[in-house]
C-alpha cells in the first residue's frame, strides 16, 4: 500500500478530471465533485505525511516500473521529505483554488474543473518524478491546462498573455529536453536516483534556463505581468503559488544536485541574478499600481530570495529555501485569491480606485491584514523564519549577499504595508460601493485554511525546516546528488 501513495497522489486528480469531463451532471455539481476530489487529495496527502519517516533521508513511497527499456526510461516516482512538503503545499493550494472556482461559479464548468484537476496531477507529478523523462513529461503537461485556463477564462488581454507565456516556457523547456536527452544518454539511464554528476556546462545551462523561466528569475520574467494580470485570480494563485515552485524545485533537484562542480563555477552569476530579482522585484512591487501587480512582483522577489538560499550551499540555506517555498506558495495563493475577491466587489484592482474597505468589513480586513503582516516577514512569522534561515545561510557565501537580502526585507515591509493600507485604509475609493459586502462564508472557507496553515507554521516553522532533508544532512545529501 505504502509504495502506491505517490502514484495515488498523481492519479487521483487525473482520474477525477476524466470523470468531471464526462460525468452527466450540471455545472454546479461538477464543481462540487472537483472540490471533493481536491479535498480527498489533501486527505491522501495527510495520510502520506503521517506515514512518512522524516528521519530517513532516503526516497520513500517509491514505485519503479520500466517504461521503455532500450533507453532505460522508467516510471519512477517517490518522495523525499522536501518533495513531500511541496506536494502538501500544492494539494492545499489547489484545493483552495478549485473550491474558489466552484464558489465563484466559473462558466464552462466541465472544462474548467477538469483542467484544474489535471493541473493538480501534473504538478504533483513534477514534484515526485524520479525519472528525468517522466519529470519532463509532467513539466510539459503542466503547461497545457494552464494555457487553456488563462486563454479561455482570462481577462481581455489574454491572447497576448498566453502567447508570451507559452513562448517563454516552451523555449525554456525544449532546451531542457535537449539537455535531458544528452545527459540521459551519456549516463546510460534516465533514473534520477542513479544518474551520476555531470561536469557539462551546456547541460547545466539547459536546465537552469528552463527553471529560471519557470521560477521566474530576472531577466527571464517577461511572461509574468501578462500571465498574472490576465488570468482568473485562482489561476494566478496556482501560477505564482505552485507552478513557480516547480522551477525552484527543479533547480534544487536537478541543476544543483546533479551539477555540483558547475554550480560552483556559476554560483556568483546566479547569486547576482537572484539578488537582482530580489531587489528589482521588491522595487517594482512597491511601485505597482494595482493589487495583482504587488503580488506578482513580490513573487519575483521571493523567487530571488529562495534561489539565494538554494545557492548558499549549506544546511541553513537549503532548509530555509524549502520552508520559504511553502510559505510563499501559501501567501501568494491567498493574496491572489483575495485580489480576486476584491475585484469581484469593485471590478478593479487599481489602488487609485480602492481604499477604505476596512470600514464595516471586519473579516476582509482581518484576513488581509494578517496575511500582509506575514508577507512582510515580521518576527515570529513563518516567513521571518524562512528568510532568516536563508540570510544566515547565504552569509557564508559573503556578507554582501546577506546584506542585500536584509535590505530587501525592508522593501518587503514597504510594499506589503502599502498594499494593505491602499486597500483597507484611507478614504473610501471611488470604485468601492458602500454595498460591497464583507467576505462571504464561502470565501472565508477558502482563505482561512491557507491562513491557518501560515499561522501554524509561524508557531512551528521547524516542522518544515527541520524535517525537509531527513536528519539535518541537507548539504551532504544534495551534494551527493540525492542518490542513495
Amino acid at each position, binding site marked *: 500500500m505504502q509504495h502506491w501513495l505517490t502514484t495515488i497522489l498523481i492519479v487521483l486528480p487525473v482520474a477525477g478530471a476524466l470523470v468531471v469531463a464526462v460525468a452527466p451532471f450540471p455545472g454546479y455539481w461538477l464543481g462540487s465533485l472537483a472540490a471533493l476530489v481536491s479535498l480527498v487529495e489533501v486527505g491522501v496527502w495527510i495520510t502520506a505525511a503521517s506515514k512518512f519517516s522524516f528521519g530517513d533521508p532516503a526516497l520513500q513511497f517509491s514505485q519503479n516500473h520500466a517504461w521503455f527499456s532500450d533507453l532505460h526510461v522508467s516510471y519512477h516516482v517517490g518522495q523525499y521529505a522536501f518533495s513531500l512538503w511541496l506536494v502538501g503545499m500544492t494539494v492545499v493550494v489547489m484545493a483552495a483554488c478549485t473550491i474558489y472556482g466552484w464558489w465563484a461559479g466559473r462558466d464552462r464548468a466541465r472544462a474548467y474543473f477538469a483542467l484544474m484537476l489535471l493541473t493538480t496531477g501534473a504538478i504533483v507529478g513534477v514534484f515526485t518524478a524520479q525519472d528525468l523523462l517522466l519529470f519532463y513529461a509532467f513539466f510539459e503537461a503542466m503547461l497545457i491546462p494552464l494555457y487553456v485556463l488563462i486563454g479561455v477564462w482570462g481577462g481581455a488581454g489574454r491572447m497576448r498573455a498566453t502567447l508570451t507565456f507559452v513562448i517563454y516556457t516552451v523555449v525554456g523547456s525544449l532546451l531542457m529536453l535537449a539537455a535531458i536527452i544528452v545527459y540521459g*544518454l551519456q549516463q546510460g539511464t534516465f533514473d534520477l536516483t542513479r544518474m551520476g554528476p555531470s561536469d557539462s556546462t551546456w547541460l547545466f545551462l539547459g536546465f537552469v534556463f528552463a527553471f529560471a523561466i519557470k521560477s521566474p528569475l530576472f531577466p527571464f520574467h517577461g511572461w509574468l505581468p501578462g500571465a498574472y494580470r490576465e488570468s482568473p485570480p485562482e489561476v494566478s494563485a496556482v501560477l505564482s503559488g505552485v507552478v513557480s515552485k516547480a522551477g525552484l524545485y527543479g533547480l534544487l533537484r536537478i541543476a544543483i544536485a546533479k551539477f555540483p562542480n558547475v554550480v560552483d563555477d556559476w554560483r556568483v552569476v546566479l547569486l547576482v541574478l537572484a539578488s537582482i530579482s530580489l531587489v528589482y522585484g521588491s522595487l517594482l512591487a512597491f511601485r505597482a499600481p494595482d493589487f495583482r501587480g504587488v503580488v506578482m512582483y513580490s513573487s519575483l522577489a521571493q523567487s530571488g530570495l529562495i534561489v539565494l538560499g538554494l545557492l548558499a550551499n549549506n544546511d541553513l540555506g537549503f532548509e530555509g529555501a524549502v520552508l520559504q517555498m511553502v510559505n510563499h506558495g501559501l501567501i501568494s495563493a491567498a493574496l491572489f485569491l483575495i485580489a480576486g475577491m476584491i475585484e469581484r466587489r469593485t471590478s478593479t484592482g487599481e489602488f487609485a480606485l480602492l481604499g477604505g474597505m476596512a470600514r464595516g468589513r471586519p473579516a476582509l480586513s482581518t484576513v488581509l491584514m494578517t496575511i500582509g503582516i506575514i508577507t512582510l516577514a515580521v518576527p515570529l512569522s513563518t516567513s521571518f523564519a524562512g528568510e532568516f534561515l536563508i540570510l544566515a545561510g547565504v552569509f557564508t557565501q559573503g556578507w554582501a549577499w546577506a546584506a542585500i537580502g536584509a535590505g530587501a526585507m525592508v522593501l518587503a515591509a514597504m510594499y506589503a504595508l502599502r498594499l494593505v493600507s491602499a486597500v483597507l485604509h484611507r478614504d473610501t475609493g471611488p470604485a468601492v460601493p458602500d454595498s460591497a459586502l464583507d467576505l462571504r462564508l464561502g470565501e472565508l472557507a477558502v482563505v482561512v485554511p491557507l491562513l491557518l496553515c501560515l499561522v501554524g507554521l509561524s508557531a512551528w516553522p521547524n516542522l518544515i525546516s527541520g524535517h525537509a532533508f531527513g536528519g539535518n544532512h541537507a548539504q551532504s545529501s544534495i551534494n551527493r546528488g540525492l542518490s542513495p
Partner: protein
Amino acid sequence: MILAVINKPHVDWFALAPSLALLTAAGVLLMVAVFVPRKPRAAVAASLAFAGFAASLVWAVLLDVKSPHATTLVHDAIFRDRWAALAQVLIAGSGAVTVLISARERWREEHVAEYYALLTAAGAGMAFFVQASNLMTLFLGLEWFSIALYVLSAIDIDLIGSLEAGLKYLIIGAVGSATLLFGSALVYGETGQLSFDRIAAAGHGHDAMLVVGLAMIIAGLAFKSSAAPFHMWTPDAYQGAPTPVTAFMSSATKIAALVVTYRVLATAFPHDQSLWRYAIAVIACISLAWGNIGALVQRNVKRIFAYSSVSHAGFMLIAVAAANQLGGRALQYYLIPYAAMSLGAFAIVAVRERELGVPVTLENLAGFGWERPFFGVAMWVFVLGFLGFPLTGGFIGKFYVFAAAYDHGMWWLIVAGVIATMISAYYYLGVVRAMYFRDAAELQLAPAGGSPPRELVLGIGVAICLVVTVGSFFAVQPLIDVARSAARVLPL
C-alpha cells in the same frame, strides 16, 4: 507452348497477400460501380473498401509474425521481412481509417465506387512499394500508387481547387518519378545490377555516376515524402484535394516513402553512408526550417497541416540521417502516432468543412471546440501530439529521433529539431487558440443549414486515432519491440 519456355519464378503468394487483398478489393469495387444500384452504392463501396483494408491489415500482421528472417522473393523482386510488414500494417490501418473519414463525404454519387477503388488501389501500390527490393519494383510501386493518388486528388471536380491540386501533383510528381527513374538508370549503368543487395555488393563506392544516381534517387523519394526543398506540391495538393484524400496522402504516402527511403539507402548504398547521411541531414534541416516557417503565416488549416507534414518529414529524416538501429526503430515508432495524428487532424478538418461548406480557416474554426466537445478535445490532442507534448506518442517519437541522432554524434540535429519545435508551438497552439479562446461575439455558432451532421462513422475513426495517439505514449515498450525487430532487417 510459350509458357513452357519462360522460366517462371516461384511466387510466395502469402508475402504478396497484403497487396493482393487490396487489389482484389479494388477490382470488386469497380464491379460495384457498374452493377450496384445508385442508392446503396456508397454504403456498399465503403464497406467493401473497409473490408479490403482490414483484410490487408490482418495479412500484414500475419506476415510480420511469420517472417522472423528476411528473405527476398520472386527473383529478388520483393522483400519478405518485418520492416515492410510493419509499414504495411500502418498503411492498411491508415487506409481503413481513411474509409471511415470518407464515408459521409458529399461525393458526386456517380464517382463514389471509383473513389474507393482508387483508394484501395493506391493502398495496394504502397503495400507493394514498401516491399520493393530492386529498382524496377521500386519504380513500379511508386508509379502505381502515385497515379492512383493523382486521380484521387482531382476526383471531386466540383470542389474549387481539386482539379488544380491534381494537376500540380501530377506534374511535380511526374518530375519526381522521372528523377527517381533517371537516378535508377545511372545506378544500374554503373553497377550493372538492379537489386539492392547486389548494388551494395558491387561496391563501387564514391564513383561519380553512382553518387549522382544516389542523389537523384534520394530526391525522387523526397518528392513523395514531401521533404523540403522537394515539397512544392504539398501545400496546394493538400489544400485542394478532398480532405479524406489529404488525410490518406499525409499518412500513408509518408509512411511508404520514408520507410522505403531508409531501406534503399541502408541496403543498396552502405558504402556511401558518409555521403547520404549528411545529404539526408541537410534535407531534414531544410524541411524543418521551411515547413515550420511556412506554416507560421497560413490561415487555412489544411495548409497549416500541409506545412506541418513537411516539418514532420524533417523530423523523421533525422532518424534516417542517424543511420543506426536506433534510428530505424525511431522511424518506425514515430510513424505510428504520426499517422494517427495526421489522419485524425484532417478528419476533424473534414467535420468542420462539412458543417460550414467552405474551406476551414483559423477564423471559422472559432468556437468549434465548444460546439463539438469530442472533436475539439481530439483536435487538441492531435496538435499537441504534432508539437511533441507528453501524453501523446508524438513526444516519445521526437525523443527517440533525437536520441538516435545523438547516438550517432549528430547533436546539432537535436538543436535544429528543438528550434523547429519552438517555432511550431506558435501555429499548433494557434489552432487550439482558434477553437477555444475567441470571444462569444466572434463565434459563428449556427452553421449553414441546421444542426451539424452527427458523423458517427467519422467519430469512430477519430476515436481510433485518439487511442493510438495517446496509447502509444503509454505502451511504448511493446511498440518499440515491434519496431526493433523490424529495424533489425536493415544492415546498419
